């Protein structure tokens, strides 16, 4: 699925044509990134959307990790993303496999 792409500073990236157009590229990766980072309520249209992963990362005990896994799973399916495997044992390197 294609969408506008934003960089890490949330600035829209331009395309390579040099005409100043916005880049429209594959956006699945970006969707998941935004889903994990955004807090609930950030998207006014979908108030319950967003994992808010920052809050979980600061408390790396087992229960919160389970909760995080559950939350990510729920949020991904809410966004109609089919999850094949999900692994949050390593918080630095969360593995999500699946497709829209």
């Amino acid at each position, binding site marked *: *699925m294609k969408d*506008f792409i934003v960089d890490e500073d949330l600035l829209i990236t331009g395309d390579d044509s040099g005409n100043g157009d916005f880049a*429209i590229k594959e956006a*699945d990766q970006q*969707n998941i990134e935004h*889903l994990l980072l955004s807090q609930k309520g950030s*998207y006014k249209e979908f108030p319950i959307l967003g994992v808010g992963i920052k809050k979980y990362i600061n408390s790396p005990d087992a229960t919160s990790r389970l909760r995080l896994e559950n939350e990510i799973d729920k949020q991904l399916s809410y966004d109609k993303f089919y999850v094949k495997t999900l692994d949050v044992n390593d918080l630095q390197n969360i593995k999500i496999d699946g497709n829209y």
Partner: protein
Amino acid sequence: MARTIAEIQKEILDEKGKQPSLEKLNNDSKTAIWKLWINIVATAIWVHEKIVEKNAMISRPHTLNWYREQALNFHYGVSLDPDSSNEMSLVWRDGSYQFDTTGLTDSEIEDSKIIKHCAVSEIDLETVLNPDSKPKEILSDYFHNKVGVVFIKVATVKDEKISRIDVPNQLFAFKEYIAKIKDAGNQVYISSDQGDILKLSLNVYVDPLSIYINPKDLEYYQSKISTPDSVLGLIEANESNPKDDLDPSNGSLISDSDVFPVLDAIKDHLKNIEFNGAFVKTYLVDAVQKAQGIKIPILTKVQTDAATNPSDEPNTSPTDVTKIEYFIPRAGYFDLENLEVEVNYIPYTFYRDKQ
């Protein structure tokens, strides 16, 4: 009517669908950037439409709503200079003309706005041209200027109660203000009267387990309801004798003798009728029904009358309006201080009555 955000959003989406160059944008995720933009733009348009809607409603002169808004915006004690073109005392703000209140604190502004309730109405010619009425009545209504006159009822709030504005001082100033802002040639009739008198009589069947009734008074109450309508006149005549002996705590809660559920429900209901709203008998009964320990409330008599000024002859016999299902108090509200409620409390004990 302003459209909803969803409607605006749908229109943008439909429009986007018609543009082949935008087909590339097909991210279905809820986090999609392009959808987010549509949502933001739709919200902005919605806010704009709300403002336009409000402006259209109140900023256009000649409408009743406009008169109402102007009346509620009246600041007592602030002079309005009609000839001023530079020293504006009225400024355009938040979608309507308002008094220039620079330098005043919020509470000062709030204090100077004396009119808290306002109802505007008019009688048009069609209402008067009722085919049933005699030509004489029509002509009389027309020439006595009931047609084409804007009626404004205003009231303020004193000690959390609706009350009339200070007559004559504040009323005079308000009339002057309306005279300056109104359209030329319009007739405006402004009134701010004391609340209407209301007298209610009720028969209420109550749960004797939760509401106190002095046993010695039961007979009196029973006699009042078992009397057929035809002899009601007789009862009214000798009403005064036993009534004074009634226990004043009749009708209070057994658990708390300071609470009178029926009276409280009635007062609460009357207080919550909106200004210039109708008094509806059925609604009052419904409200009483919800009170604690009340089984069957029956409204037997309603009397009302416009309040009289202190200098006038007091009106001793209010009009009986029991047969009218609803009416609007002439002043726009009822005087709750002088509300008279007569309640016959009857214990709800049918299951033990002889059939």
